[in-house]
Structures are given as structure tokens and as C-alpha cells.
């Protein structure tokens, strides 16, 4: 039975989250308010929100577990993620923000629809199907993590942990919308940041210092200290390293992360958020890997490596701190699930119901429908998670790569290649998504377990480019992309003039 202090900390945290939901609920009476906080968010919020949305329980349970299993080979993940985050904020964010503001887009399918002039709404429907499917899998994976966390820390049943996690998330997300999601992400991100600074330090200290830890790990298995791990320099090792590094590619275009760029108050906030996000992801990822490595020395022979963090916390810390660490794990879960639920809800309500079937429905009714759909999708994830407990690391990565492979190649082509066409975008999304699923089901084991995002991205780019070359680009796309370039400059070159009138530049380019 858990200490009273642990439960006390949990209750306080849940009350804070529900309070944030209530505070944010005033701004959820419109579609733009519910799904994008009326594009009003400052730099710290979008930086932490993007990272915590991307990281989840995968970071605290999955990546620590991977550090436990493969040692410093897990640093390839850190390399990919840090580069992915840096490239996203420096290359993608500002042009994407400019164009989505230009089109008044509230969702990523909104943006794609307007960018390619898709009057048939095919892009919206395809996007909605992909988002709905992958969010279902992703949510179930996170609620699985909730079940594991509660049972490891507090001693509840797995099923009880799943249900408690789901209830709290659904409460503050359905009431408070994107604003509640983003500000709770900030709180959760700060807790995650502090914990992932503290945990490896305590772990190394408990091991007797850095030297002692390294010597101890070497005694268990010297390969744990090397970049290629137990694979050595082999095809399997290279495939593993590439796969690990590829995880970070999703930061360039996963829709749940792109919405953070859209929700920024202005591009100045994006500029300020970039360095915050990169420093944050370095601490997150290094902290998680080192925690797992320290755990391998301190608690060798764990049956489930993904419990290394709960085991370390309950053994090494007093009950109040253990409660806070549990809160951090739940924070990681909730900061992802809440964003996914909003994403999926927006795909259904904004992209399909409002834009395709019921354009005359009032904003108030649509926002209310959004809340109802959020709850329904959450309940679906809950039922799936209750059915079976899965390994968090790979299950989350499957859903992560499904979303990323479908959207990232198309979004990047739409931002930087004028020749991208509507047909190229549609078939590119389908190809990226289907390749990911088929790879996991049929080919992965036969190809050194190569992570599915690599072939998924490859297929997404190939098909987008090939189909685009055989079809006509939308009129006005040239002008819009040239205007973006004049307004925000290139990735590593400033905008041509110091004082620019953005509105006139867009109109001027179109003449």
C-alpha cells in the first residue's frame, strides 16, 4: 500500500490540473479558442508544450528502460531528437507559422487544404482517418503507461491505474481545450526537466560516483559503454543506430507538434522558444539515458526494464519525492495524451464536420461537439489499454512514426518545394502511413528490426515527389512561397529588408 504522502502529492497535482482546465475554459467557446487557444501563446509555453507533447511516458519509462538495456548505444536517440528539435524550430516553424496565419488555419489539415486549394476535401478526410487511427493507438499506449506507473509506484492494479489516468486527463482536456493542454504542458515540462536533472545525479551519487558507475557497468557488460552496444560495428548495429536517430525526424512535421507553431502569438515567440526547446530536449534525453544506465548498475536483473525509474524512485527517495516523481511520470503521459485528444477531436470536428458537412453550425455548437468527441476518443483509448498491457517503448514509437511518416514529408515539401501538388500531397500521406504499418507487420523483423519511420519517410517523400512531378501545382503557390521567403528569410539567411509589410508582400507577389 502506498504511503499517504505519495497519494497526497497525487491529489494536489490532479487538483491543479483540473484548476488549469477550469481557468482555460473561458476561452473555449469557439473552434479557434478550443483547438488553438486563439493563437495567443508565448514562447515558454510553446517550447515546453512542443517537447512534452513529443516526449511522454516514452521518455520517462521507455527511454530510461532503453538506457537500462543498451547503455550508451541509446545516445543515438538523443542525437536524432536534438537535431530534429533544432531543425524544426530553426527551419520549419517560422515559415509554417507565416503560412498558417495567412490561411487562417486552425489545424494542419486546414493548412494543407488551403495550400493545395483542395475543394474536394480529400486531404481533410485522408488526414482525419490517419490521425484518428494513430491517435487511438498512441492514447492506448500512454494509458498503458499510466497503468504501469500506478501499479509500480502506488500498488494499484494495472486496470485501476489506466482508469484513474484517463479520468483526470479527460476532465481537464475536455473542459479547457488547447489552452489548458498547453499551460498544463508547461507545468509538466518544468517538473520533467527538474526530475531528469535530479535523477541521474542521485543515481550516479548512489553508485559511488561517475568512475564507480562506469566500472560497475563495464563489469556487467563492457559493450554497454560503447556507441554500438552489443551489436558492435555490424549491419544490425548500423540499422539500430539509424533507427534510433530517425526517431527525431518526427519533430519536423508531426501534426501534434506543428500545432504549437500555429498557436504562437507571433514569430518573435517562436524565435525565443527555439533555444528553450533545444536545451530542454538535451536535458530530457540525456537525463533519461543516464538514469537508465545508473539503474542498470544499482538494480541489475529487473524483469521489466521499463520499471527502472519507479524502482529507483521508490527505493532511493523519501515518500514525498517519490510522489513527485510519480507525478512527473503522469505529467509526461498526460502532456502527450491531452495533445493527441485535441488533435483527433479537431480532425473530426473542424476538418470533417465543419469544413465538409456542416459549415453553418455555430462556433459554440462546434466547440461543444469538440468536447464530446474528445471524451469519446479518450474512452476508446481507455478500452484498448484495459484490454492488454504492452511494451511502451515500441508501441508508442509505432504510433509516433505513423503520424510523422504521413505528414512530415508532405508538410516539408509544401513549405520548401513549389512544385508540390495536391495529388502528390494526398498520395504521399497515404504512402507514408501505409508503408509504416506494412513495415511493422511484415518486413521489420526481416530487415534487422529497422525502425519503421525510416522506410515510412522514404516512401512519403518518394511518392510525394514522383506524383507531384506528373501533376500540376496549384495556382498561386509560387507567389505564396516567394512571399514567405521575403518575409521570414531562408533557414540561414535573414529576410531581405529590416522593415517589411507582410500583408503587402503577399499581395504584391500575387500580382
Amino acid at each position, binding site marked *: 500500500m502506498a504511503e499517504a504522502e505519495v497519494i497526497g502529492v497525487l491529489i494536489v497535482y490532479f487538483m491543479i490540473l483540473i484548476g488549469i482546465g477550469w481557468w482555460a475554459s473561458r476561452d473555449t467557446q469557439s473552434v479557434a479558442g478550443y483547438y488553438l487557444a486563439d*493563437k495567443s501563446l508565448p514562447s515558454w509555453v510553446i517550447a515546453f508544450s512542443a517537447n512534452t507533447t513529443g516526449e511522454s511516458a516514452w521518455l520517462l519509462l521507455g527511454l530510461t528502460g532503453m538506457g537500462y538495456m543498451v547503455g*550508451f548505444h541509446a*545516445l*543515438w536517440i*538523443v*542525437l536524432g531528437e*536534438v*537535431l530534429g*528539435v*533544432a*531543425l524544426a*524550430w*530553426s*527551419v520549419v516553424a*517560422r515559415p509554417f507559422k*507565416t503560412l498558417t*496565419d*495567412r*490561411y*487562417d488555419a486552425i489545424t494542419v489539415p486546414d493548412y494543407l487544404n488551403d495550400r493545395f486549394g483542395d475543394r474536394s476535401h480529400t486531404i481533410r478526410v485522408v488526414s482525419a482517418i490517419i490521425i484518428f487511427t494513430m491517435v487511438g493507438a498512441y492514447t492506448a499506449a500512454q494509458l498503458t503507461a499510466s497503468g504501469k506507473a500506478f501499479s509500480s509506484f502506488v500498488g494499484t492494479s494495472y486496470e485501476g491505474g489506466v482508469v484513474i489516468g484517463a479520468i483526470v486527463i479527460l476532465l481537464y482536456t475536455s473542459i479547457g481545450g488547447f489552452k489548458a493542454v498547453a499551460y498544463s504542458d508547461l507545468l509538466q515540462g518544468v517538473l520533467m526537466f527538474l526530475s531528469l536533472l535530479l535523477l541521474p545525479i542521485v543515481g550516479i551519487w548512489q553508485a559511488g560516483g*561517475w*568512475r564507480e*558507475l*562506469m*566500472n560497475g557497468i*563495464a563489469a556487467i557488460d563492457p559493450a554497454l*559503454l*560503447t*556507441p554500438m552496444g552489443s551489436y558492435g560495428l555490424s549491419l544490425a548495429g548500423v540499422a539500430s543506430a539509424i533507427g534510433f536517430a530517425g526517431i527525431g525526424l518526427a519533430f519536423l512535421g508531426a501534426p501534434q507538434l506543428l500545432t504549437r507553431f500555429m498557436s504562437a*502569438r*507571433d*514569430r*518573435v515567440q517562436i*524565435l525565443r522558444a*527555439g*533555444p528553450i*526547446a*533545444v*536545451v530542454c*530536449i*538535451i536535458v530530457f*534525453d*540525456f537525463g533519461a539515458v543516464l538514469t537508465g544506465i545508473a539503474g542498470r548498475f544499482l538494480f541489475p536483473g529487473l524483469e521489466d526494464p521499463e520499471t527502472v525509474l519507479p524502482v529507483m524512485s521508490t527505493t532511493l527517495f523519501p515518500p514525498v519525492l517519490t510522489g513527485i516523481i510519480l507525478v512527473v511520470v503522469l505529467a509526461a503521459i498526460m502532456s502527450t495524451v491531452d495533445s493527441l485528444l485535441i488533435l483527433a477531436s479537431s480532425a473530426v470536428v473542424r476538418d470533417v464536420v465543419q469544413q465538409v458537412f456542416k459549415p453553418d453550425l455555430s462556433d459554440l455548437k462546434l466547440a461543444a461537439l469538440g468536447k464530446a468527441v474528445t471524451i469519446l476518443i479518450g474512452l476508446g483509448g481507455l478500452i484498448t489499454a484495459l484490454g492488454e498491457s504492452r511494451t511502451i517503448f515500441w508501441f508508442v514509437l509505432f504510433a509516433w512514426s505513423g503520424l510523422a511518416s504521413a505528414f512530415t514529408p508532405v508538410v516539408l515539401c509544401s513549405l520548401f518545394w513549389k512544385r508540390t501538388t495536391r495529388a502528390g500531397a494526398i498520395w504521399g500521406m497515404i504512402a507514408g502511413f501505409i508503408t509504416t504499418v506494412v513495415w511493422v507487420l511484415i518486413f521489420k523483423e526481416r530487415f534487422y528490426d529497422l525502425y519503421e519511420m525510416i522506410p515510412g519517410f522514404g516512401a512519403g517523400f518518394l511518392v510525394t515527389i514522383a506524383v507531384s512531378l506528373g501533376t500540376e501545382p496549384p495556382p498561386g503557390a509560387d507567389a505564396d512561397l516567394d512571399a514567405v521567403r521575403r*518575409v*521570414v*528569410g531562408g*533557414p*540561414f*539567411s*535573414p*529576410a531581405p*529588408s*529590416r*522593415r*517589411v*509589410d*507582410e*500583408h*503587402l508582400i503577399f499581395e504584391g507577389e500575387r500580382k
Partner: protein
Amino acid sequence: MISGLPFPTWILMAAATLPGLILIVVSTIIHSRTEGQDTGRRRGKGNDG
């Protein structure tokens, strides 16, 4: 070995952090001179910066 870790592992650690940090710092410096200098509307209809 340096402090108990093989040299290639230290290389990987540096590669995992430095390129990303340098990239974001350089990009932020380059664009900070022109961002926020806009005189006109930045958004489509209905919103105000």
C-alpha cells in the same frame, strides 16, 4: 578510455548535443535582427497581433 568511457562514446555524446545547439543559436541570431520589425498586418482576416 577517458573517465571510464571509451573515446568514441565521448564523440557520440558531443555529436548528440553540439550540432543542435550551434544550429539553433546561429539561426536565432540571424533572424532576431529582422523579426518583430514588421509594420503591417501579420495574419489573415480576423486576428490582431
